[in-house]
Structure formats: C-alpha cells, structure tokens
C-alpha cells in the first residue's frame, strides 16, 4: 500500500494496520491491485450495449475514434451510461420502497409488523386520497399500501406526488416533459432509450434520466421513508454513540449492515427478548450488543438509538476487529468481499435477502411469514458463535463519539415550535427556519450526503465540507454514510455548535439542536426534500430560489448518482466530490454543469477539494440570496 493517508479516522487506520498484520485484504488493497483505472471507463466513453462492441471512443474530441460501430458519438455513449447509472440507483431505492409498501400491506394488529405511528398514517393516507374517517387503522394502512404500490407500475393517470412539492416545480417539470409517471416505467424507459439504436441525443437522454430520478426522490424513496415511519415510528431526537469503539469486549456483537429497516427492526426487537439475553449469558457473554453500518445503521439509530459502528469503507474493518460474532446484511452496498474476509475470523457473514445472495455467506432468509422467528434464528447463530471468538485476534479500537440523532422533519418542526411565540404562532410550521434564513442569521442550508470512496481520503471530504459550511453559518443536514462520518467526528453533538458561525450558533442555542442534523438513511433524503419543499411553500417560492445546496463529497454508488440527479432536477445545486464518468462527453458535461440550470434552476458542480467546495457553496448561496432579495 502506498504511504498516502487513507483516512482521517483513527480507528480506520488502526484496523488497516491490523488487517495488514492479519494478512487479510481490504477494499483499499484491491484498489491498489487494480492499478490505474481505465481512462475510457473513467471518462464514460466505453459502451457495451450490444455485441457489435464493446466500443470505446476517444474522450478527446477530434482525436482518435469518434464513433462506435453503430455511430454513437462520445456524448451519446456518455449520456446513455449516465442514464443507466441513474436507472440503477432508482431501481435500488425503488425496490427498497416497494418492499416497504408490501410490508405495510401485510401489517396486522397481531403480526410482527404493526402500525406504530397512526398520526403519520392518517396524514399520508390523506395525501394519497385514502379515506380515513371512521375506518379501521389496518384497513387504511392496507389501502394506502395498495395505492402507493400503484405508482410503481401505473400505466394511466398521474402519480401521487407529495404536497410539499411546490406547484412551480411541477410546472417546470411539465413544461420540460419530465413529469414522472410510474417508478418502474421510468426505469424501463431509461433501459429502453439507452438500448442500441434508440436515443442518440445527449440532451434527450439526460432528460429521460432526470425523469427517472424523480420517481426515486419524490416517489420510491419518499414512500419508503413515510411508510417506514408509519410502521416503525417517526424518529425523535435521541442519543447514540459512533465508531468502531462501540463494539463491546464481552458481549455478543452483532453488526447490522445494509438498508431495509424491516430486517433491523425485527432484530432490534428480537435482541431485547429475555430469552435471547439469557441465551447470550449462558454462553458467557454479558449481553447482546447491536451495532449498525451504512443505512441500516441509520434507520435503527434514528428510531432506537442503535450504535453506529461505522460507514461504508469500514464494513470490512468491523470484521477485522475480531470481535464481531455476526455481520447481518440485507441489500445494497454490501461488499461481496466480506464472504472471503470472514473466513479469516470467526465472524458469521449472514445474508438474508433473496435479492442479494452472496456466495460464501450463510443465508438465513427473513421469512415473510415468521419474521420474528427468522430474527431469533439469526441472533441465536450469533450467540452460539460467541465461544468461537479468538481472543488473541481481538482488537477493539477505543475511539467512539457521542452523537444526537433522530431529526425527522416532524422532530425538526417540534423543535422549531420551541422558538415560536405562542401569541404569534403558527405552530408546526417551517416559518422559524424560513425566518432565520431570510434574515440572514443562517445564510443557507446544505444537505451533505452520500458514501465513502477510496479515491478520496476516507471521511475527509465529509468532515471538511461540513465544518466549513457550519462555520459560514450554513446549517447542515446529513444522511447516509456522511451522517456517520459526522457522528464519528463529534459533529452531531450539541457542543459542536462551538464550531459554527455566530448566526448558526445562536440558532442552535435558541432551538436547542446540534449544528448538524442527522435526518436518516439514503432514502430519507426524501425528508430533506420535504423540509426544503415545505420551506419553499411557506415563502411562496420555488426550491431553486432558496439558498439551499446538496453535497456528496465521497459518493460512489449509482444510488448517489440518482440522488444527485433528482436533487438537481428538484432545483437544488449539487456538488460532487468525485468526478463522475462523464468527462469524455463535452456536451454532457455542458448539460450537467451548465445548461441544466436553464431547465431546472440548478446544476452540478464537480469539485474534489472540500475547501474549494465550501467556497463555491458560500458564493452560490450568496448569489441565490441576492436574487431573492434577502
């Protein structure tokens, strides 16, 4: 491995040393082994969409091969590849949302999954036009689920988009011809249009991709979040701890990794059962220690305060501690490398979803008919594995940080009520937030989201961007692996307000919040849309008018590409800290970083340097403020 610093997180560096000593490889080693990535792929000018190819055209206009065998230009190839990434991301989020819908459809008063937040059920049912008056809660839930599911495969009529979406935005999409239809339909539409011999116009291809992405943010992800809240409870502010130091020396450590809350909810419930705790004690452990990784961690921490073991690039390192009895996963962002890695330790790598089987793992399917039974089975596996822990191989890092999590939109509005004068009102509104932004006390708001990427120094982008923004009085909300980076570095504590600028610090004191708010998992970026949309509606403006930005400093997944695309299409400027594979298509670059602004009032910025990113955001935020006259 080169001498380059790989992470700013000490536990990560310590565990990388241990991995070296233990003779196991990590993603960083594999990246090294792959040498320099292929320039054609990196520029997006490699096409494999038919067997006449693969074709690779020159990323430099006017030099070398300019067209593929079918005649596709660099821009066409790049735009198609880009669109397919968007479709991949949308599909991932949407299938997640779909299973949540199906879970809601199968809720019952005596089943494993119940309706926990009736108030939210009523609110969401109302927006889907489901009658609620005088009806049984579960009848409402089932009809809501069925109605929501229709928007995945609807062939006629318009889907139900939330009222937080400003009318002006809807109009923009209509005029542009990108008003979303059904989720699956838009994914299929991208796949079709990018087939050989279909769309060969970058502009049109990108618009199709934009339309697809909207079914993610405003439909798939949105429903996933809303329905998860209905079944598992709407998150409230709570305390937790973060980083690999949360693993316990004499407890059965179970790390939950993946995305869908259905699995984690069941395991959290099962791990609290006295019989499970007894069983753990019977094998000599003090108890069961549940920790999370990636978005499952976010789901479980937002609702139960489950500790955060780490983010994406730390998933292997959890195993390397030698202290994890079971690494339980479902879908998305799970390194298949975990199968081989866990062979070198006692860790059981347990897969649970038929959508993500991994060779070499122990597969225990989460049985739809008996989820609790499956969860118990999984925990039992972990407990029974405790005795196999090789103490000589264990090294649990000491480092962990305090964090406050659980900032759903509902929680944020509740907190804002605390600063509303009861003789002026109104309560439960975004007015206080809008007020401080308009007054300039807070300059703007930023959603910092996304993954880790070994191309960047692990966590550095997240932390530097977040610190830079709060210092400039830009309030930050976080989701995904960015949230965990923030948690690990102590930025989710109220005390972190000392790092904020004077205005944000004052607001944090008044509202009693940290300067960085954890809003959940990647699908919970829909919560950010909800908050921004609500604020825009309150001010009677469009989202693109607000001094609000999105940042993905270390993104890697196709989901992140889909997210970035729907965020921009929603009117929010988005900064990418990793160069996307589009540089070989000059027109595509021009569209994404320039022309798209004329269409939707926002665009992409690509800037790997976090400090420059902060400067650009501050400048852009001030520009938007000026335009709005605030």
């Amino acid at each position: 491995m080169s001498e380059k610093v790989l992470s700013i997180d000490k536990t990560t560096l310590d565990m990388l040393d241990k991995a070296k000593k233990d003779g196991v490889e990590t993603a960083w080693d594999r990246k090294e082994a792959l040498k320099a990535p292929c320039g054609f792929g990196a520029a997006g000018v490699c096409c494999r969409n038919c067997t006449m190819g693969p074709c690779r055209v020159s990323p430099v206009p006017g030099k070398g091969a300019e067209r593929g065998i079918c005649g596709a230009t660099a821009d066409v190839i790049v735009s198609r590849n880009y669109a397919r990434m968007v479709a991949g991301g949308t599909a991932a989020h949407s299938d997640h949302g779909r299973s949540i819908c199906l879970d809601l459809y199968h809720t019952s008063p005596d089943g494993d999954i119940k309706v926990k937040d009736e108030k939210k059920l009523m609110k969401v049912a109302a927006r889907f036009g489901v009658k609620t008056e005088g009806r049984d809660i579960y009848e409402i839930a089932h009809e809501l689920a069925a109605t929501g599911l229709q928007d995945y495969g609807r062939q006629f009529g318009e889907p139900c988009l939330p009222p937080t979406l400003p009318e002006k935005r809807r109009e923009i999409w209509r005029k542009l011809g990108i008003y979303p239809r059904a989720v699956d339909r838009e994914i299929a539409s991208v796949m079709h249009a990018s087939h050989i011999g279909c769309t060969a116009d970058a502009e049109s291809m990108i618009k199709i991709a934009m339309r697809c992405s909207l079914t993610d943010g405003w439909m798939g992800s949105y429903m996933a979040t809303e329905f998860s809240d209905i079944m598992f409870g709407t998150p409230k502010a709570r305390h937790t701890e973060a980083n690999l130091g949360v693993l316990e020396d004499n407890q059965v450590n179970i790390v939950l990794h993946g995305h869908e809350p259905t699995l984690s909810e069941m395991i959290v419930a099962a791990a609290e059962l006295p019989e499970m705790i007894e069983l753990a004690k019977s094998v000599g452990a003090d108890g069961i220690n549940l920790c999370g990784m990636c978005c499952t961690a976010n789901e479980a921490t937002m609702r139960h305060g489950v500790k955060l073991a780490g983010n994406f690039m730390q998933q292997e390192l959890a195993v390397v501690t030698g202290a994890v009895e079971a690494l339980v996963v479902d879908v998305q962002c799970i390194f298949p490398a975990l199968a081989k890695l866990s062979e070198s330790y006692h860790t059981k790598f347990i897969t649970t979803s038929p959508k993500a089987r991994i060779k070499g793992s122990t597969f225990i399917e989460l049985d739809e008919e008996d989820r609790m039974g499956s969860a118990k089975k999984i925990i039992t596996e972990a407990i029974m594995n405790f005795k196999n822990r090789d103490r000589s191989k264990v090294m649990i890092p000491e480092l962990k940080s305090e964090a406050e999590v659980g900032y759903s939109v509902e929680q944020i509005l509740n907190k804002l009520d605390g600063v509303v004068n009861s003789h002026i009102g109104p309560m439960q509104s975004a007015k206080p937030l809008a007020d401080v932004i308009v007054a300039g006390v807070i300059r703007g708001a930023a959603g910092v989201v996304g993954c880790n990427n070994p191309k960047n120094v692990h966590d550095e982008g997240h932390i530097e961007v977040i610190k830079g923004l709060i210092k400039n009085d830009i309030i930050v909300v976080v989701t995904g692996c960015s949230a965990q980076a923030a948690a690990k570095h102590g930025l989710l504590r109220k005390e972190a307000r000392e790092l904020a600028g004077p205005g944000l610090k004052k607001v944090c004191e008044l509202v009693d919040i940290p300067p960085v708010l954890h809003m959940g998992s990647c699908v919970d970026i829909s919560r950010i849309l909800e908050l921004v949309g609500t604020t825009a509606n309150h001010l009677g403006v469009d989202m693109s008018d607000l001094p609000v930005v999105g940042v993905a400093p270390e993104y890697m997944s196709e989901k992140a590409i889909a997210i970035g695309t729907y965020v921009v299409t929603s009117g929010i400027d988005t900064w990418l800290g990793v160069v996307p594979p589009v540089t070989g298509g000059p027109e595509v670059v021009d569209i994404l970083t320039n022309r798209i602004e004329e269409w939707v009032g926002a665009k992409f910025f690509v800037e790997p340097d976090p400090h420059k990113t902060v400067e650009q955001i501050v400048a852009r935020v001030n520009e938007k403020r000026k335009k709005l006259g605030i």
Partner: protein
Amino acid sequence: MNLFQTIFTGSKQALAAAEGIVKKAVEEKGRDHKVAFPDTAYSLPVIYAATGKKITTVAELEGALDIVRSLIVEEEMLDKALNSGLATAVAAEIVEAAKYVLSDAPYSEPCVGFVSDPIIRSLGVPLVTGDIPGVAVVLGECPDAESAAKVIKDYQSKGIMTFLVGKVIDQAIEGNVKMGLDLRVVPLGYDVTSVIHVVTVAIRAALIFGGVKPGNLAEVLQYCSDRVPAFVNAFGPLSELVVSCGAGAIALGFPVITDQTVTEVPTLLLTQKDYDKVVKTSLEARKIKIKVTEIPIPVAFAAAFEGERIRKND
C-alpha cells in the same frame, strides 16, 4: 434591502449624525470643553463599559467616534450585525452627550433624558426581588393614543418599568397615562437617540450590581442578557436607524417586538400587529412571568401605584 444591510445603513446614519453634532460641539464649545452626564460616576456608561475609558472632554468625545467606526463591519454575519447595532448605541450616546455639552438642560418636562445613578440604585432591589418584573422600552408611535395607553397601562398594572421614546410620549399623555418614576412610566425623549438613556440603565446595572469590570464588553452583554429583563416595543414605521438600534437591543439580549412587517428572527425580532397581544407577546419573548396574579378590580392595581398620591378631586 435585506435585514443586515438595513442595520448597517442605520448604523452609518447614526455615525453621520454623531459626527455632525460632535463637530458642532467642537465649533461652539471647543475641544477642551467638559463632557459629562449629570449625577453619574460612570462617565458615558456605554463607552465606559465597552472600553473601560472615561470620556471627559469634547476632544475625547470626538475620538470616541472611532469606536463607532470600528464596530461597523459590513459583512453579512450575525456577529457583525449585532456589533453594528452596538455601534449605533455608542453613536447615540455620543449624540446625547453632545446635547448635554451644547445645552445645560437639553431635556425638559415631560422628558427626563439621562437617568441618574441614584435612581438606578433605587431600582436595583425591586429588580432583583422581581418586584419590577420587567423593563419595557416603548418607542415610536402607535396608530392612536388609545392603543398606546392600553399597552402602557397594561405594563404599568403588571409592575413593569416602562420607558417611552418618541411620539408615544404624547400619545401616553393624551391617553391619560399617569407618569413618573414612582409610577414606573418614564418618558425619556422625543429623539430616537434618547433611547440610549435606558440602555445605560441596563449597562450601569451590570457595573453596579453585577460588579462587571468596565471594558469587559462581553460580560456586560451577558449580564444584561441574563439579568436585566428588558425588551423593546417599536411602534410605527421603522427607519433604518431604529432597526439598527433594535440590533443593539438584541445584542444586549433584549427582544424587539414591533407592529410593523419586518424580517422576523424567532425570539429576537417579532411582529405583533394585534395591540391587544403586544404585552403578552413581549412578556413571553423575554420569558417574564408575572408573580402576582392580577386582581380584578376596576383600577389598575399594582406596585406602580404605590407612589401615587391620591389628589382630592380624584
């Protein structure tokens, strides 16, 4: 104009006004002329609290303009805006001090102008015991005398010390508000800058009762914010100057409640257009709880009337 720019503009106007009147003082009285407010050991209290320096001559007063200039940094951040508000306060104090230079008795009935140290000391105990639950600064002009009187009498009935600045003084008189220190309604002056005389009350409280060392501005501000339960009601059209004064109040921890449409800042700068709710809104904003329950008798009954003499024909 955005809120911060309004504040900066007002502060620059305050500076210009201060420069103007100081120039006049120099011309008419010379640089060696003595500068002092009556009956105080704290010189120019705002400047003394901020810098630890006492201003004794017109030359020094002229030099104090630099303090104002240094506090105006036109960068759109909260701390800069609050400092700009403090700049306006300092400029107002300079203007008011110059008035006392240019005239032996710049204030006359009903206005009191500068509030002397002995009065502040007499206010100390009731403030600490909560007998005076709050200090209201009512400034500007209400749409009519009736609403002005209603608001002021309501404060009076709650034992709150109310200082009046501007046309609202005339409206209070018209509305038959009984005034006087004992009655806890004190008209200060008609110019906006006379509001500084209540600011120096708060600041001297920090120096006298809080034992804060002059020059320790941060501690002075903290003391006022924590211990002096003051707030501002700004009525009628708000000039940039008034808004920047308001920023000064906010810097001291005093919320501003106005009947005008402004860019609100939760808990700090609020719009309340309903005059019947101004008092309640203000008390909640300053977190003032009235200790004694109001007794439902026809005459306003409160400590403010303790000093009132019943005249024969009443």
